[in-house]
C-alpha cells in the first residue's frame, strides 16, 4: 500500500445546492482515491451526481453550490518522487492557487463539445489561452506552434489552417478534438472527461477514446472518465465507481465490478446495457422504477424503493460500505459480515 502514488484523494465529499430557500443534498459522503497512471470510470444513471462530483473536486461549480469534505487532496508527482500536496478543499474557487492547478495539473473535458467553445474566437486562440496564462514568458507565436503540434498529435489534418477557424466552421468530432487539445495543451497530470463523446457518432467516439487511452498509457497520466457507455468502461477503465443518488454504492477494479457485481443496482445497470455500447440516443431506462427526487431525503438505502431484496433494515440509518474483496467496496446490507470500510 505504501508505494501507491495517490494523485487524487477525496474523503467524505458532500455537495448541496441552495435553490428557492431550500438546500438539496446532491452528493453524499463520496470518498475515493485515484492512483497515478490509472483511469477511473464513474458510472450511474443520469442525474445521479457524476458531473457534480467531479465539478466539486475541481471547484467549477454554480454559485448556489455548497461543498464540504474532510479533505480533497491533489498530489503532483511531476518533479520528484516526493509529491507536492495541494489541499483543494481549502482553496477558494477562483483563487490564485486553484487557478494554478487548472490547466497544468488538472484539466477537464466537458460533456458538450458543441457548446464548449467560445463562438467568437478562433480555435487556435482558444487553445493557447491557457498555455499563455501559465507560461507568461511564452510568445504567442511559440504558443501557436505548440497548439499546431498538439492538433497534429490528435490527428487533425492541416492544423495550420484549422487553428484559424472559428468553432462554427468545424464538425462535431473536430470540435471535440479541439476541446481535448485545450485540455492537454498544458500537459496536465490528471484529465477529467465528463462524457466526452456522447454527442459524437460511434466511429469518432472510438477514435477519440483511443487517443485518450494512448495518452494515458504513453505518458502515465491519470484519467477520470464519466460515461454511460459500459463498452467504453471496459476498454478504458482500470477502476470503476458506481453511483446512485449521489452516493457511491459500489467501487472496485474493472474486473471486480464486471465479473462480480455485488450491489443490486450495479447488477441491474450491467444487465440493462449491452456491453458493446449504447446506440446513439438510447437511454438507460430499462431499470424498473425511476430515480427518486433528490429533494425527498430519506433514511436508509437510496435504492431501497427499487430493490427486489429490500428488507426493513435497509430503510433505517446509514448503510455502511463492506469490503468483500481487497479494494472492492459494496454499500449493501446483503454483504454485511464483511469488513466495514466506509
Amino acid at each position, binding site marked *: 500500500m505504501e508505494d501507491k502514488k495517490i494523485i487524487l484523494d477525496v474523503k467524505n465529499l458532500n455537495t448541496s445546492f441552495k435553490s428557492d430557500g431550500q438546500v438539496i443534498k446532491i452528493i453524499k459522503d463520496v470518498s475515493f482515491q485515484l492512483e497515478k497512471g490509472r483511469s477511473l470510470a464513474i458510472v450511474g444513471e443520469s442525474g445521479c451526481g457524476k458531473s457534480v462530483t467531479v465539478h466539486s473536486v*475541481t471547484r*467549477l461549480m*454554480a*454559485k448556489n453550490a455548497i461543498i464540504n469534505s474532510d479533505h480533497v487532496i491533489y498530489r503532483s508527482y511531476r518533479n520528484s518522487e516526493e509529491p507536492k500536496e495541494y489541499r483543494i478543499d481549502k482553496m477558494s474557487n*477562483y483563487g490564485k492557487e486553484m*487557478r*494554478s*492547478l*487548472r*490547466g*497544468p495539473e488538472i*484539466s*477537464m473535458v*466537458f*460533456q*458538450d463539445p458543441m*457548446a*464548449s*467553445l*467560445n*463562438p*467568437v474566437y478562433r480555435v487556435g486562440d482558444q487553445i493557447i*489561452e*491557457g498555455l499563455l*496564462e*501559465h507560461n507568461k514568458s511564452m510568445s504567442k507565436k511559440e504558443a501557436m506552434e505548440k497548439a499546431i503540434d498538439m492538433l497534429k498529435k490528435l490527428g487533425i489534418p492541416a492544423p495550420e489552417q484549422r487553428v484559424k477557424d*472559428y468553432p*462554427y466552421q468545424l464538425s462535431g468530432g473536430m470540435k471535440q478534438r479541439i*476541446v481535448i487539445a*485545450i*485540455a492537454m495543451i498544458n500537459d496536465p497530470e490528471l484529465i477529467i472527461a465528463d462524457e466526452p463523446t456522447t454527442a459524437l457518432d460511434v466511429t469518432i467516439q472510438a477514435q477519440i477514446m483511443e487517443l485518450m487511452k494512448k495518452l494515458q498509457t504513453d505518458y502515465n497520466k491519470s484519467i477520470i472518465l464519466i460515461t454511460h457507455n459500459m463498452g467504453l468502461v471496459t476498454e478504458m477503465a482500470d477502476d470503476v465507481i458506481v453511483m446512485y443518488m449521489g452516493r457511491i454504492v459500489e467501487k472496485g477494479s474493472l474486473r471486480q465490478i464486471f465479473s462480480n457485481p455485488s450491489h443490486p443496482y450495479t447488477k441491474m445497470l450491467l444487465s440493462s446495457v449491452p456491453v458493446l455500447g449504447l446506440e446513439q440516443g438510447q437511454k438507460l431506462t430499462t431499470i424498473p422504477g425511476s430515480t427518486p427526487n433528490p429533494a425527498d431525503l430519506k433514511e436508509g438505502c437510496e435504492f431501497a424503493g427499487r430493490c427486489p431484496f429490500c428488507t426493513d433494515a435497509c430503510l433505517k440509518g446509514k448503510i455502511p460500505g463492506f469490503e468483500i474483496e481487497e479494494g472492492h467496496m459494496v454499500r449493501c446490507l446483503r454483504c454485511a459480515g464483511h469488513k466495514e470500510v466506509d
Partner: protein
Amino acid sequence: MAKYIVRRLITMVIMVFVISLVIFIALQSTGVDPVGQMLGVDNYTKEAAEEMREKLGLNDPIIVQFFRWWGNIFKGEYGKSIALGYTVKDGLIAKWPATLEITLYALLISTVIGLLIGMLSAFWQNSIIDYLGRGIAVLGNSMPEYFFALILIQIFSIKLGLLPSAGRIPAGGGSRLPNLILPVCALAIPLCGNLMRYTRNTMLDVANQEYVKLARSKGIPEWKVYIKHIFRNSMRPVITILLFRLTILIGGSVAVETVFAWPGVGQVLTKAITASDYWVVMFYTLFMAIMMLSISFLIDLIGALLDPRVRLGK
C-alpha cells in the same frame, strides 16, 4: 456580406417610401383643414378657402400630392409651416443640433455608466452595487423622462438653486454646462437603468454557458473570464438594445425639451402637433422613420461584425 448590405439598403429605401405614403395618407385623413388655419377665422370665406386650396394643390388626388411632396424633398424644399410660417429648413432642421446635443450626451453618459455598473453587478451579483443598479433600473423603468425632469427641477433648481431650470446658452454665450446638466440627466437616468439591467442579465445568462466553464477550467483569472468571454459574448444583445434606445431617447427628448424649454426639434414638434401643422409633422416623421431604419440596419451590421459566422459570409 456586400451583397447583404446592398439588399438591406434597397429594402430600406422601399420601406421609407411605403412608410411615408402611409403617414401621408393618415395625416390627410385626419380631417384637419390647414386652409382654415391659414386664413384664420376673420378672413375665412368659402371662396377664399377654395382658391387657396387650388393654389396649394390640395384639391389634387392624394397620390399626386404625395409625389409632389417627394419631388420637393428631392429639390431641397422640405415644406413650410402652415400655421406659423417658418420653413421646415429654418424651423425644424436648424433645431437639430440642440436636440442632438442633449441626446448624444445622454446616450454617451448612460452607456458608459450603464455598461460599467451592469458589468460590475454581474461580477458581484447580489452586492450593494447590484442592488443599487436594480433600484435605479426599477426607478428608470417605472417613470417617464419628463417626470424625472420635474423632480430634478424641484430639487436642483427650486430647492437647492444650483442649476438653471430652463433654456440653452447659444454658442459663445458663456458656459453651457449648467443648462445641459438637468435635461441630460433626465434623459440619461431611465436609459442608464435599463441598460445596466440588460447588461447584467445578459452577462449572467452568458455566464452559464459551457464555454465559460471551459474558460475557467484553463485557470485564467476571473476578470479575464468576465471581460474576454462573458462580456464579449454579451455585446451583441447589449448593442442592439443600446441602439434601439437611441430612437426612444429622441422620442423622450420631445417631452424633456418641453419641460426645460430646450430649443430643439422636440419643442417645435409639440407646437406643430397642436397647430395641426402637417408638413412639419410629416417631415419629422419621415426623418424619424429613416433614422429608425438606419439604426436597425446598423444593429444588424454591428451584430454581423461581432459574429464570425455572419462576418465571414455564410
